[in-house]
Every structure is written in structure tokens, then in C-alpha cells.
């Protein structure tokens, strides 16, 4: 008994038992590499608060001498000169992003569970179609998608921004890969208890899928947040933020500065969602309760 306890203790203090030097070395390595990774983003932020005359100083500075919010002001000025109030674009974007993210998570989770854990006529075929859909990239698809949407009367309809993004093969593939790791015994046990597939999916499997689900939320949010209205919607009151922000960035006086301000502005919501979701991922202590 005593030996088991010490082993347990050792195992649970896995991190603590490690040489601290190793962890420090990892930290230093990641820190240096990470500095290179964030440098361009840091420069973007710096450029966005530089006044026009500082953009062309030689040698270029890694900081702003006199930081200013002029670029952001110019961007918002360009945005609010439209006939439609700025808040309308914000509302459109939030509405599109929230509905795409929610529907994608619900639909892909259910489909992924069935495809990962049930065998039925067609399941193999659908599984391989998903991967093929991921690999098949063609310019022509957009045209065909446009034709399909025109047939459905979706052009210049706000739903045109939401419906095509609801079923993402990438999201489904991600969830399916993750759910396939759930031990079959767990699902069998729930079946013996008389639970239907729907309940097994949402009450047994999904509570253990927090890491994958949070990752899916990040992907879905990021993709939906950047949906441009393109040729699908013409009416100004249906346009989304990225569309008008890109327009503003392209028309600004000091183009570089305003473009940077626009990039920074658009980057904030995905980063906030990322931080919230990642914290959830890390707080999960994976424990399925059943050992294979």
C-alpha cells in the first residue's frame, strides 16, 4: 500500500520531480523562438500608433517616438462616413460570427461522434469524402457555389454569409479525430444504461472533448470573423466589418498606418476568444474514468 502511494505521489508530481533545468531550457528556447514569431505582429502594433512622419525615419525604429491614435481615428472617420452607422457593421459581424460558430460546433460534434463511433451503411464513404473535400481546392468551386446560391435565392440575402460556412469539413475532421480516441467501453456502458445516441453524444462523449471543442471554437470564430461580403451581398446594411475595414484601409491617407490600425483592430476579438478558449483547454484535466 505504502509503495503504491509513493508511486502515485511521484507520478502526480511529475512536473515537480523533473529537473528544473530542463524546464528552464525549454522556456528559454521557446522564448527566443517566440520573440521572432511575435516580432512582425509587434511591429504591426507599433506602426499603427506611429504618426505619419515617423513611418519613413531611417533607421526604422522598433518603437514609436511620439505614439498617437491618429491612425485609428482616421480609420473610424473613414468608416463612419458611410451612410450606414458603424454599429450596424459591428452587429452584422457579431451576428454572422456567433451563428456560424454555434451551428458549426453543434452540427460537427454530432456528425463527428456518429462518424467516429458508429458503423452504418455509408459511414466509410462519408469519412473519406470529408478528407477529399479538405484536399480538393479549386478556383472553380467558388463559381459553382455562387451558382448554387443564386439558385437558392441567397444572393444579397444576409443568410448567404452564414449558411455556406456552417458545415466545415475541417471542423468535422478535427472533432472526428479527437472523438475516435474515446474508449468504446465508455459508450457501450452508456448504451447498457439505456442512453440513446443523442444523449451519449452530449452527456458522455462531449464533456470529455473540451480541448477539441475549444479548438474548434477558435477555428470557427476566426474564419467567421473574417468573412467578407464579396460578391454575395451588395446592400450596405448587410456588409460585415472586415469588408468595410479593408475598404477603409485601402482609402486612408497614410495608407500603411491606417492599414496597420485596421489589422490591429480586427485582431483583438479573435485574440480575446483565443485566450478564453485556451484557458478552458488547459484547465481540463483529461480523465475519461475508464482505462482500456
Amino acid at each position, binding site marked *: 500500500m505504502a509503495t503504491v502511494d509513493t508511486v502515485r505521489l511521484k507520478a502526480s508530481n511529475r512536473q515537480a520531480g523533473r529537473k528544473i533545468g530542463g524546464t528552464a531550457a525549454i522556456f528559454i528556447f521557446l522564448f527566443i523562438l517566440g520573440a521572432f514569431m511575435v516580432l512582425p505582429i509587434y511591429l504591426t502594433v507599433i506602426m499603427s500608433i506611429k504618426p505619419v512622419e515617423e513611418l519613413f525615419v*531611417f533607421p526604422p525604429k522598433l518603437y514609436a517616438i511620439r505614439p498617437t491614435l491618429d491612425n485609428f481615428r482616421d480609420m473610424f472617420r473613414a468608416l463612419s462616413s458611410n451612410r450606414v452607422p458603424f454599429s450596424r457593421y459591428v452587429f452584422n459581424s457579431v451576428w454572422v460570427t456567433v451563428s456560424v460558430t454555434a451551428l458549426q460546433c453543434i452540427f460537427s460534434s454530432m456528425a463527428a461522434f456518429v462518424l467516429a463511433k458508429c458503423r452504418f451503411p455509408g459511414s466509410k464513404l462519408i469519412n473519406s469524402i470529408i478528407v477529399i473535400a479538405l484536399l480538393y481546392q479549386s478556383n472553380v468551386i467558388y463559381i*459553382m457555389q455562387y451558382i448554387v446560391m443564386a439558385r437558392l435565392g441567397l444572393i444579397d440575402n444576409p443568410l448567404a454569409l452564414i449558411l455556406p460556412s*456552417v458545415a466545415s469539413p475541417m471542423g*468535422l475532421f478535427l472533432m472526428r*479525430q479527437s472523438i475516435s480516441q474515446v474508449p468504446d467501453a465508455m459508450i457501450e456502458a452508456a448504451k447498457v444504461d439505456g442512453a440513446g445516441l443523442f444523449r451519449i453524444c452530449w452527456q458522455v462523449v462531449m464533456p470529455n472533448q473540451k480541448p477539441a471543442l475549444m479548438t474548434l471554437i477558435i477555428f470557427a470564430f476566426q474564419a467567421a470573423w473574417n468573412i467578407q461580403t464579396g460578391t454575395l451581398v451588395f446592400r450596405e446594411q448587410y456588409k460585415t466589418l472586415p469588408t468595410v475595414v479593408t475598404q477603409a484601409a485601402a482609402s486612408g491617407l497614410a495608407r500603411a498606418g491606417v492599414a496597420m490600425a485596421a*489589422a490591429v483592430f480586427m485582431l483583438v476579438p479573435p485574440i480575446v476568444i483565443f485566450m478564453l478558449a*485556451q484557458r478552458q483547454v488547459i484547465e481540463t484535466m483529461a480523465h475519461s474514468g475508464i482505462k482500456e
Partner: protein
Amino acid sequence: MAQKASAAEDRKKKSGELWKEIKKNRACYAMLAPFMLFFIVFTVIPVLMSLPMGFTDFNMVQRPKFVGLSNYATLFLSDKIFLRSIRVTLVFALLTGPVSYVLCFLLAWLINELPAKLKTVFTLVFYAPSLANVYTVWQLIFSGDMNGYLNSFLINLGIINSPVQWLTDGRYVLGATIVVQLWISLGAGFLALRAGFQNIDRSMYEAGAIEGIRTRWQELIYIVIPSMGPQLMFAAVMQIVGSFTAGTVAQNLVGFPSTDYKAHTIMTHAYDYGWVRYEMGYSAAICMVLFVVMYLLNRLISRVLSKYMD
């Protein structure tokens, strides 16, 4: 006669069984239905409609005209720039794909060894480039005058005397593109692997410790990698797609077309014919070639991975 009748009966019996199977699994189909409805309408149908386009002459104004294999013949026999783009794509994909794949896994693992708070921060640091997608700043870094960050940095160090045209000099175009591609490539695959690490059951480590696993390396090889098969596969598919269909990075960074077609990938070539010259049939044929390459590679990788996992 009798044989024929029995064969027909057999078929009937089989289809009856199939129907029974389908009925038995109707809950599965019901749960699949919402996803499949949108997937079929907005992905499968457009894909099926686009498949025959490679055999047509299609300018987006008139109806597509069937031309048989002539698009493919032109591609492989007389389109010199296409043959060049194959080489660029292969060099590009072979340099960025595997490096980025290993990097995704390595970084996801190293981050996993850190305390919880640092995990979030470092995951964000490495994923942030895929969130940001900022090309403008890279243009400023690689800018050809003295104001470019890289040029001014190297001039200050005395490594170069005069500014280098990173984005237009044929010698550096592909290199610059590869750097930026690697920078943004720690994307979906990396995050999925991070989630995979988080998914590994604690009891696995405990069991490992009891069996005498001591170092990080042993843990990685005996516990972590064998239980990450699905995520490794996901990351591989993402990596294939990312490295082979890369084109936007080059177009945004070094212009289009790039100097001497040095960064002209297959996808860029398809974009050129599709959206610049409106020869959609030809463009579709180009995309089809690329798809076949990626599909075969995917089959190969999934075979290797599944052999390794079992």
C-alpha cells in the same frame, strides 16, 4: 435460369438487409443530417459541378464547351510556365511542409512541458501569426530600400553595404516567401496537436511512471506519440493542404507574377488563368492536377502513420 433467379433473389435479400441496417441505424443518420444537409448543398454539389470543368473551355460568360483532354495536353506538353510552377511548388512544399510539421509537433510538446499559465501565453505567441495574417508588415520588413527593417538591420551590422531587393531579386524571392509561409504555418495542425496533448489521460503518465519511465524523451516516445495518432493525421492533412496550395503568401508578398516566376506555384498559375485571363476550364485542369498529387500524398502519409501507430 435457376441460377439467374437465385442471383436476383440474392440481390433482393441483400438490399433488404441493407434497408434493415439503415433502419436500425436511423439515429445515426438523424444526427448526421444537419451537417450533411449544409455540406452537400454548399460543398459536395459545387465540387461535383466543378469536376468536369477541366475538360471544357469555359470563360465564365459563355456556356462551357467540351474540349476533351486538350487542357491537360497543353498543360504537360506546351505550358512551360506550368512545368516551372510544378518545380516551384515541389521545392516550396518539401521545404515548408515537413519543417513546419515537425515544428508544430515539437513546439506543441515543449509547450506542454511548461506550467499552465505559460502554456496559454506560448500557445498564443506561436499561433498568433495565423490569427493576424499581416502581409503589409512583411513587405516593410523585406522592403528594398534602406527603410526596410531587414536591410537597415544588416547595414547597421555591416553585413551588407547597400540595400538588397528581397522581394524582387530573383535570388531571394522564393526564400522570402518560404520564411513568411513558415511563419504563418503553425496554424490548425499546431492547435489540434496542443489539444491532443491536453487530451492524454493523466493515468497514462501514472502508469508509465510505475513501469519505470523517467525522462521526458521516454514519455514522448512510449506514451505521447502512440496516443496522438488522430491528431498527427489531422496535422498532416492540414500541412499537405497548406504547403501545396500556398499561393496567396507569394501573391501578397512578392507580387504577381513574381520576378522570373521564381515564386510561381501551381495555385498561383491557376489563379492567373482563372481570375486574370478568365480561362476557367484550363484553371480547373490545373487545380485537378494539384488535387491528384495531394490525394496520393495523403494516402501515402496515412498509410505510414497508421503502420507506425499500431
